[in-house]
């Protein structure tokens, strides 16, 4: 039940964010350059922080080097080849499975 309430709060917050721009900027008003730059940085910063947190850390310390790190390198390599989210996900997942099968 706790998780469900949290999901509902997060859903309301997410909807408010998604609707905010539509509601506020449908007329003549425009987003200020400063806010636009700040919002543009929010996604990369937040996602990089979460990626680093979950990839490099585990149980309060550093994650032992292995399949997780190699999966990230494989995903980066796929990005060089095909700059497409689905291919990066597929390449990373396949690499992770292979490294796990190899005992890493």
């Amino acid at each position, binding site marked *: 039940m706790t998780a469900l309430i949290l999901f509902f709060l997060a859903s309301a917050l997410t909807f408010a964010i*998604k609707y905010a*721009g539509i509601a*506020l900027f449908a007329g003549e008003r425009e987003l200020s350059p400063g806010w636009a*730059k700040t919002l543009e940085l929010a*996604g990369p910063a937040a996602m990089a*922080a979460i990626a680093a947190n979950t990839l490099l850390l585990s149980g309060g*310390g550093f994650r032992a080097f292995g399949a997780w790190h190699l999966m*990230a390198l494989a995903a980066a390599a796929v990005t060089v080849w095909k700059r497409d989210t689905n291919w990066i996900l597929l390449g990373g997942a396949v690499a992770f499975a292979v490294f796990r099968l190899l005992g890493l």
Partner: protein
Amino acid sequence: MTERDAFSLRVPRHLRHEFAHGAKEMLPLSIGGAVFGLAMGALIASSTTIRPWAGAVGTWTLNAGAAQLALMDLLERGAPWLIILGTVAVVQARFALYSASLAPIYKVFPRRWRIVLAYLLTDQAASFEKHFTPLLPDPVRRRWFFLGGAGLFTGLAAGGAMLGIVIGPVIPSSWQIGFIVPLMFLAIILRTVSDRPSLMAALIAAGVAVAARDLPYGANVIVATVAGIGVTRLLAPASWYRGAPTGEANEPREGTP
């Protein structure tokens, strides 16, 4: 075509055609969304803090893959709600930018359509709608086209998650399905970070997240995010940014469900 007809079952054939056309155009991206949803569902099924039915309901109400992964990860780590909701807000902040750039397109739609399309807004849907708007001058046809595309994407992504919740329990824990969390975020970052300010913010945030790992309640993520944004805004010269604050320069890029 009146507004009253909009959500009734008596939808004229030409609008049903636009709906189907939008869904067809969105199908390739939606397949990726379904696969991602499948992994998300498996992650929900393996969670120790989220009951599968709550995860299923939450998937439909939230309709935001990155935010849901962040929420689930922090909940699993025992973070307080304020930290979790703060993190969700910063992960989702880019949607304020997307919706601001879509506002001129949506303003001719009735309010209930704006509400539904806002709920269905994802990185993919925002990119899709910006791309097809010039090709659809009639706003009534356009909104049905958007509904077909964005609706299919959300339907397949959430449907994939439901399937993942069902089949998740048979996935052995040795598979470490949690790897999908960093992989998904990496995929978005690697795909979308193409300018120097975004790269700088991402690198600073990643570094601070690791350096601040001892902060309690998983607060290192939100501290790192604020640091990444703040330091970049302070240090990055104006010439590094892509252009005008709204309009085409801010066109959404393909990312996550």
